[in-house]
């Protein structure tokens, strides 16, 4: 299909050009309007993406040599999985601009520069099909995020931003080693080609660990999650929104795109561990969220729990589980993004994120509390909202897998209801009310809260469209996984006795 321009490249390059254009603008107000316009234009440029065909093929493929000496290619394409993520990224940008309209008052130009740069890198991450290209975008996105936290963050922004950077970079350095190992063993950096290559179990074992570390830190999964609350609490609203809606998804996207297709046998081998960690994330995140006094921290810990549902769904290796994971990724992006915007909203009024300083809003800010209630219900998976669809699917997948795994999820879901009700009740009816003089939502706030609300109901009530979108890709993913996984086991079953006989394990991939 031809649109007269390379769609994905345009989506990556346009924000960068727009960001460069910011340097010619002086006034902060014009900067905001300009970025708003650019983000809407970016959405318009993405219109051709709606011709996405509902099958498992790579679409909107762009392929060119990049560094031919090393076989690096500029290779972009989307399938059902990445399509959803690209759309999410693009949709989040205008919301971010709107929710920082008055929130950000210093260095406005640089702030919007970071937002645009960030969007370009995120689209790149989800669209890249060359391993190195993926890595380039993956790392490039750290810099604007670091600056978003470090420059526009709260009191402890330096600590939080540094922690964020160190954690994520430390994780991804080993990913780089794994990428190189894939190239040397598989002979290419092209991800679709690597997906066909039979790697030995030994090789998969080590590369899975290297990749999983990077992705688990990004998600973040239970023992590696400590950077998240710090980063979320200190980041400005827009930073938190991007962090929750897009960045965390990169980790789970990595599991789906790389771990399952490239190292199926190792994924299977480590699945019990990953499931255990996921459950730990769900329970731990929920339990900690229950005790928070800071609303933003509470939502941050709830993210840990929600992302636990995603990783759990992925490592169930069944259709429902992976579908549930994808829905949960999308939903978490929408709901948590919206919750962070609401926290930004109320912070502009109370200048505090403590629950005690934001109580009794129900009477004075009915619109605000209405939206909050909606998102809180969606967050805990109330039927009729999108949160329900995702959680339901993961539940189904989990019970298909084993009753024990399913049984562990029940308290997780209950915890979600508990912490969300606790904070929402206090915010709505808590005494004494601190909101007597606060104005309710203005038009701009209405605008950026209505858009996610529409999606909450749309996905909650009629998720069919999204099923059609992701199902072919998920089927292919799960099908390939099952098939390649059994092949792998045969190969390793034959290879192991030979290796034992030779005493030395030949060609061990990582450990030299």
């Amino acid at each position, binding site marked *: 299909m031809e649109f007269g321009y390379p769609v994905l490249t345009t989506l990556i390059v346009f924000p960068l050009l727009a960001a460069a254009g910011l340097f010619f603008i002086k006034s902060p107000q014009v900067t905001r309007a300009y970025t708003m316009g650019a983000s809407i234009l970016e959405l318009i440029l993405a219109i051709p993406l709606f011709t996405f065909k509902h099958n498992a093929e790579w679409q909107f493929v762009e392929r060119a*040599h*990049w*560094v*031919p*000496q*090393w076989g690096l290619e500029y290779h972009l394409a989307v399938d059902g999985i990445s399509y959803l993520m690209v759309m999410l990224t693009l949709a989040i940008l205008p919301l971010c601009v709107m929710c920082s309209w008055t929130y950000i008052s210093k260095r406005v130009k640089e702030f919007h520069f970071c937002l645009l740069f960030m969007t370009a890198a995120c689209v790149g991450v989800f669209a890249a099909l060359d391993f*190195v290209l993926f*890595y*380039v*975008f993956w*790392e*490039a996105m*750290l*810099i604007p995020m*670091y*600056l978003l936290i*470090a*420059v526009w963050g709260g009191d402890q*922004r*330096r600590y939080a*931003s*540094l922690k964020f*950077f*160190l954690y994520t*970079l*430390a994780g991804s*350095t*080993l990913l*780089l*080693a794994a990428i*190189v*190992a894939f*190239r*040397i*063993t598989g002979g290419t950096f092209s991800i679709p080609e690597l997906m066909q290559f039979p790697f030995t179990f030994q090789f998969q074992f080590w590369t899975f660990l290297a990749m999983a570390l990077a992705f688990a830190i990004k998600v973040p999964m239970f023992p590696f999650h400590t950077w998240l609350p710090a980063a979320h609490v200190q980041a400005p609203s827009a930073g938190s929104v991007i962090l929750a809606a897009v960045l965390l998804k990169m980790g789970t996207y990595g599991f789906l795109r790389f771990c399952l297709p490239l190292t199926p046998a190792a994924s299977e081998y480590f699945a019990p561990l990953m499931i255990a960690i996921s459950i730990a994330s769900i329970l731990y995140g929920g339990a900690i969220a229950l005790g928070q006094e800071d609303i933003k921290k509470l939502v941050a810990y709830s993210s840990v729990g929600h992302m636990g549902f995603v990783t759990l769904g992925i490592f169930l290796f069944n259709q429902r589980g992976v579908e549930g994971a994808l829905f949960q990724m999308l939903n978490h992006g929408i709901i948590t993004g919206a919750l962070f915007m609401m926290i930004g909203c109320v912070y502009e009024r109370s200048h505090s994120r403590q629950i005690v300083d934001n109580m009794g809003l129900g009477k004075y800010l009915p619109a605000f509390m209405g939206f909050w209630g909606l998102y809180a219900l969606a967050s805990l998976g109330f039927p009729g909202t999108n949160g329900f669809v995702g959680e339901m699917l993961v539940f189904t997948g989990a019970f298909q897998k084993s009753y024990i795994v399913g049984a562990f999820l029940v308290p997780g879901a209950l915890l979600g209801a508990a912490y969300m009700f606790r904070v929402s009740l206090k915010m709505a009816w808590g005494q004494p009310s601190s909101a007597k003089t606060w104005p309710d939502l203005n038009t701009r706030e209405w605008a950026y809260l209505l858009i996610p609300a529409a999606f909450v109901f749309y996905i909650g009530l009629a998720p069919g469209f999204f099923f059609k979108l992701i199902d072919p890709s998920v089927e292919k993913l799960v099908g390939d996984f099952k098939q390649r996984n059994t092949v792998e086991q045969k190969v390793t079953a034959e290879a192991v006795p030979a290796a034992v006989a030779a005493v030395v394990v030949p060609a061990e991939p*990582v*450990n*030299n």
Partner: protein
Amino acid sequence: MVFNPIQIVPELYQLLLILALFFQSLGDGSDTPPAERWLPFFAGFGIFVCIVSWGAEGLLFGGAYKIDALSQFIKLAISAGFYVTVLNASRQPSLEERKRPDYFMFLALSAWGLMILSSAVELITIYLALEISSYSLYAVIPLRNTGGLGDKRAAEAGIKYILFGAVATALALYGFSYILASQHTSYISQLALRTWTWEGAPMAVVGLSLFLGGMFYKLALFPFHFWCPDVYQGASNETAGFVATLPKLGAVVVLVRLATLLKPGLEITTLLAVLGAASMTYGNLCALAQKDLKRLLGFSSVAHAGYIMVGLVSGTAMGLSAAVFYALAYLVMNLLCFWVISRVASDGRNLQLDDLNGLYKRAPALAFALGVGAFALVGLPPTIGFMGKFFLITSAWDHGYNWLVITLVVNSAIAIYYYLGLVRHAYTHEAGEDVPTPDNSAFSICGATLLAALVLVLGMVPGRVFDFAIMAGKQLLP
């Protein structure tokens, strides 16, 4: 073999510059234009001269001097680096006007020695070229007028550099005698045919190790690195900018030539790998604690010397190309960082990390350039630092030193802390009292922007430059 002067035009041109500077330094400077006025133009023309002699090939001076793709590549890089350092030093605040011709003469002489080094394929020639480039630096380092504050750091740095250099070169010469006694030749092409195992030729292995020590000293590889942070700190910013960049290139080219002897699995190759690992780890850990910007960059260069070893021990043409490419990347990144440092410290002081506070406000362009340089040194995409590191580990993977590759990537994670410190101070801290006034002239901003653009562009489309590096590598190890 017929001697054809056309082949060594870059060297001759550089010699001409040296002579001109020498004659100017004889006078009292009243009737000649100041050196910093005319030299940049002629140094810039030197780049052009190198481009003209790009495709030259040949073996001169009884086989001791080889003009090939590698040497021309490095000569071009050296002349470009020389141009930048001369520009950088042209506004040096801590140097008296009458000393400038001498100062530039020594810089040019050192660059000349490095050019010869890049073509030398015989151990004695290598040794001589190394000495030419070192001796002139011995004279340059103490040339720092710190404003009569009784600061003896520059002299101390000079002495340290001389003493350390003397010992290292003496060791190299001693090692050379062993090599000659054991292998009966000093030509690298001949040496490459001999055995270098410990069983086969223990004496030669010891000799080569010692000889390599001389190069490691130039490169500041652990354990020959002790001079590095002290000298950077003691020398003026502009001098440090030279010492930190060009001599490393010279050392790398010799190591790349000698690496043709080093097959993976040999004892000496493993020794190199271990030194590389030690160097990167030690350098990065020490840099974590530094407050002085130049000391920090000094330890960072110790770490980078370790990174280059990764390419050298792989024993493949790709590995050597990657090492050459990384040396180039290192050159560009450090030129950028030192350019910014020299411009920020417009009064010639030693910058502390706190002096960078609030730089984004005082000099947005310089702060941005520093950010680019710092992220490039970490090895973050899309910069040349990432590409260089990526090529290094790709070429070295599965050649027997995977642990070294893992050490490298883990080290990048350690290094991020202190490089990020530069960005953190420049962008998130507010300026305190007594911060230096950065030079915001068009000259300063243009230089920073061009170098930063080079770092970014070569990071995004390195293909063309890498072709040359590969050409150079393939000639050495077909």
